[in-house]
């Protein structure tokens, strides 16, 4: 004789502390085992791609800020790079250096937010505040150069908006040292902690095949042994001039993702240091780029991709020769990465749900565009 049992549907979100935004996850649990997971999204959909069709090319840059608002510089960059590809413009060297410095600073800031909020999900309170202190170091630097703390709108088609203020580069060098010390402290506080390791090692495993098949990119992929980093694969901007490693791990579990992100912060610091050493005086924007209302790429289409903190961010731009884009498609890493939840959560224990979900590092502004 068997007892009739029912599965329970647990509705996680749209208002839930661990979804980091308005995101809904419908999970069906059989006892404590998840049998079905269905992400429901679109609560933050603003129609960015539709908006782009009615904007001048430059007008859309502030909207890219609002996709992945934790890593706005790379969004700015990849959009501008796509248009520059259509225009076939050469970018002044100094602008490229400034772009690399701000993008890497922003990557650190983004990873720090992940680190802090992930530990908050796991239940540790203090790392969150330590991470935000260090993120503030990055944001203050970015504020000085771009005039905003999150929605930078700094990178322009053909260069950057402003040159670095006096003494900024030296200040960055100084702060890099400070950041390096602070991040080392995180290891003492968290990485070795047995409770933390028990919750993360062996949890939420992603295989190499899964990663490639589901189109997962960024630290998530690299934690599963897929060594793809667009900065190395197709060095965009001037990334081929720097000496840095791509941290990869084979395990594919949550702890591996944690380690990869921590290691990536160190690599970013290395890149910033080298860029600060190499940077030279010079122009900061292409001579036609300054006239921001007059940008008119020739008809054509191009896909451009870059390595954002969440993974591969891409822009598919179609121009018909007018001053407004015909079509802008944004390949948002979080949107693709979040789809793995349907597969990854099946068979997991419900107590691992938050630990796995948090490790994906999604930003809802980016998922919903």
């Amino acid at each position: 004789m068997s007892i009739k049992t029912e599965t329970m549907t647990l509705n996680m979100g749209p208002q839930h502390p661990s979804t980091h935004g308005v995101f809904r996850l419908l999970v069906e649990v059989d006892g404590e085992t998840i049998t079905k997971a269905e992400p429901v999204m679109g609560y933050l959909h603003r129609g960015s791609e539709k908006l782009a069709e009615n904007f001048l090319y430059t007008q859309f840059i502030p909207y890219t800020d609002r996709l992945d608002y934790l890593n706005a510089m790379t969004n700015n960059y990849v959009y501008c790079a796509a248009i520059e590809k259509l225009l076939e413009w050469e970018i002044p060297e100094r602008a490229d250096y400034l772009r690399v410095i701000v993008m890497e600073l922003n990557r650190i800031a983004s990873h720090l937010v992940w680190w802090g909020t992930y530990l908050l999900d796991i239940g540790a309170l203090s790392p969150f505040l330590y991470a935000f202190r260090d993120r503030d170091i990055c944001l203050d630097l970015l504020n000085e150069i771009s005039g905003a703390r999150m929605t930078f709108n700094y990178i322009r088609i053909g260069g950057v908006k402003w040159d670095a203020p006096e003494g900024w580069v030296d200040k960055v060098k100084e702060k890099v040292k400070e950041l390096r010390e602070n991040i080392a402290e995180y290891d003492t506080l968290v990485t070795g902690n047995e409770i933390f390791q028990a919750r993360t090692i062996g949890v939420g495993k992603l295989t190499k095949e899964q990663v490639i098949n589901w189109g997962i990119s960024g630290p998530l992929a690299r934690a599963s042994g897929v060594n793809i980093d667009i900065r190395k694969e197709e060095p965009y901007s001037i990334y081929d001039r720097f000496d840095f490693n791509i941290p990869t791990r084979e395990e594919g579990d949550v702890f591996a993702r944690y380690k990869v992100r921590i290691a990536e912060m160190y690599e970013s610091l290395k890149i910033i240091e080298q860029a600060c050493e190499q940077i030279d005086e010079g122009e900061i924007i292409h001579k036609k780029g300054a006239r921001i209302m007059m940008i008119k790429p020739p008809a054509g289409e191009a896909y451009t991709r870059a390595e954002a903190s969440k993974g591969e961010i891409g822009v598919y731009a179609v121009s018909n020769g007018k001053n407004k884009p015909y079509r802008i498609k944004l390949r948002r890493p979080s949107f693709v990465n979040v789809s793995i939840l349907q597969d990854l959560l099946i068979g997991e224990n419900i107590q691992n749900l938050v630990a796995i979900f948090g490790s994906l590092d999604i930003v809802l502004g980016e998922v919903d565009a």
Partner: protein
Amino acid sequence: MFRLLKGFGVTLNYFRKKKITIQYPDEKVVMPERFRGIHRFFPDKCIVCNMCVNICPTDVITLTGKKHPENPKKKIIDTYNIDFQGCILCDLCTEVCPTDAIVMTARYDNLSSYTRSEHFKDIEWLSNNHVYGNYEESGPVPEMGERGERK
């Protein structure tokens, strides 16, 4: 086995360190010169070219001009409004302004209000927004273009 104990040292160490909280309404962060706060408008510099209206991605700027009393070829500004409900402080309007008639100030805390209508700022409010960069108007007024190179 007891690596978790090392963490206790970290937190206890912070117990004695200096706190980094900023007591917001009492002490305010000084934003860098480039900070994109609320706009300031200089009516006498405006040539009513409509560039800011055209570039604004959110269509929050509205302006009207009238004929210059002496030179009929020129125009002077009559009304100038920004609806801050929709403004995303993207700085594009100041970037395209040929005469720097609209600039962004380093002030960030005078936009909160209880009603929506208060977000609608007119020419008078915008030209009386007496902060510019890091300087009060009574202090040294910086030369134009000091807020980073334009164009």
